């Protein structure tokens, strides 16, 4: 192994992105290229992003600074007024609290459970393929339909969840999972975790599969216990997969619309809404029916996600990770 330039790697043995080998290797130089050459390889991706996303994003921002009538007609510029109206909206604190609970709960449970699931699904056992197919189903099914399915399952009168719990004598009277304030958010989080598990689990499976078997065998030969092997080898080498799964899952959960919109459909007001359903209701379902305020909420939502992701990348030391 030669060492050419660019040596920043402390020998902490942390993983490189995606995986399998300790940091030592990174001290050799990765090829340095000029910006024009690099741009050539990035051009298709940049063209796609600029071509599709840029214009609608600019439109969103412009709408957030415009005034609209209740029927959606453009009335003129509004400056930052939509933002101040949203920020002083009486229900905003509740919506922000819901968003926080929703995102933290769904992401945390999803990551922990998927780690265990992935660990199980990389083992060799009869019927493994079938179990992997089963795990992909909540992902493969349309989220809108799954949400409607859970509305039926949770129902007070004809829902199977109550039926089963009553039959097992866990409860004496049915629970109004989606109507009772004590249960609504928890019931939605269960569905959120359920549909998020396949994605993170398969990211972890791919990550686990990229860990070279010789590293594990060496540790075994050296007498490391299973827990030590997991803590000292698997987990550090899984860091990049963890990073991708956590960051993207956080973004998707922030922007998750169908579950909350469908399961919370019958409750009035904004008591269980997150920013994204709040945004939609502002434009189409509230008294205001204000497209400008809705667009301002959309921009605020993006800014919050951006801050959260940047803080997360900072905490996990992403800059080190991509050297």
């Amino acid at each position, binding site marked *: 192994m030669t060492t050419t330039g660019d040596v920043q790697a402390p020998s902490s043995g942390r993983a490189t992105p*995606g995986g399998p080998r300790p940091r030592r290797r990174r001290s050799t130089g990765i090829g340095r290229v000029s910006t024009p050459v690099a741009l050539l390889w990035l051009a298709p991706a940049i063209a796609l992003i600029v071509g599709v996303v840029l214009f609608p994003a600019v439109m969103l921002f412009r709408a957030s600074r415009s005034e609209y009538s209740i029927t959606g007609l453009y009335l003129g510029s509004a400056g930052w007024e939509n933002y101040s109206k949203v920020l002083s909206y009486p229900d905003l604190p509740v919506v922000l609290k819901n968003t926080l609970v929703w995102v933290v709960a769904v992401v945390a449970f999803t990551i922990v459970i998927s780690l265990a699931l992935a660990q199980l699904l990389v083992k060799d056992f009869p*019927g493994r393929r079938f179990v992997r*197919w089963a795990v992909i189903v909540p992902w493969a099914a349309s989220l809108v339909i799954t949400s409607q399915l859970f509305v039926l*399952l949770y129902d007070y009168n004809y829902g199977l969840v109550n039926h089963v719990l009553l039959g097992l004598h866990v409860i004496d009277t049915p629970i109004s999972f989606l109507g009772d304030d004590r249960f609504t958010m928890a019931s939605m989080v269960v569905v959120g975790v359920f549909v998020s598990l396949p994605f993170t689990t398969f990211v972890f499976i791919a990550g686990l599969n990229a860990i*070279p078997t010789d590293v594990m065998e060496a540790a075994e030969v050296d007498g490391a216990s299973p827990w030590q092997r997991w803590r000292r080898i698997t987990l550090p080498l899984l860091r990049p997969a963890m990073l991708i799964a956590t960051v993207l899952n956080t973004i998707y959960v922030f922007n998750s619309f169908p579950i909350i919109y469908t399961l919370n459909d019958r409750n009035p007001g904004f008591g269980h809404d997150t920013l994204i359903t709040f945004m939609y209701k502002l434009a189409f379902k509230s008294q205001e029916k204000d497209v400008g305020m809705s667009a301002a909420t959309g921009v605020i939502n993006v800014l919050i996600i951006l801050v959260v992701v940047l803080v997360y990348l900072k905490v996990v030391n992403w800059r080190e990770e*991509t050297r």
Partner: protein
Amino acid sequence: MTRTRRPRLVAFGAAVVAVVFLAPYLVMVLDSLRTSTDVKTTPPSFLPRVWQWDTYATVLGDGRFPHWLFTSLVISLGATAVVILVAIPAAFMTARHHFPGRRLFLLVVLITQMFAPTSLVVGLYRQFFELNMINTYGALIITNAAFNLAFAIWILHGFFSSIPLEVEEAAALDGVGRFGMLRRIMLPLTLPGLVTATIFTFIAAWNEYVVALTLMIDDDKKPLTVGFRSYVTGYEQNWDQLFAASVIAVVPVVILFALIEKHLVGGLTAGSVK
């Protein structure tokens, strides 16, 4: 591959996992075989009171169904192909080369994911209206591709970075150029990442709803997710047909997954640097 010392325990745990993941969808299958009113009857029963086997024939016999299926397939396969072709060079370049703006590029890609499609749909409509691309497969293919690019680039970036430099150095000594390096050496080693990206993009495009609802106005050009809406409306509630159609819609995804799942097993780099 991890060997296990307690195969029975593992198999039992896995069976429990499979049951938990399938249970809600088993209910969906059973609901598709009930009469529509039986779906909402108190008290509920696990099995349909009347088995209504012809729901699936009704849905498949609906003249619109083949069109919807075709649209879904074209959009999902098209978007997946675009994403993979666009993500590979970008991920390879950012993972194996140094240049100014490398991290910025990865961040900008990530930022595109932060815009909820719901909030951009008005602008997307305007954009494709100006381009005369309303009701075209192309509009939905590139939209789905653009919105799902981030995951593919990030996961492939991770996999490319993890390939030991010795592999690249050996190939360089043998006189392999940058493109040959990518195609012959790197891509085979990142197969698990490619498979994950493929599954991810296909599923995301397959289930995309809001943009398709807005851009596809012709009934014949709607994808399955949008077409299904006509089964449960304010006027008629055919829950049985909605659920039957949803069950059918899961099948192509599981088939795709079954075809490429075996490549999720990587471990190819094991022994390649001895």
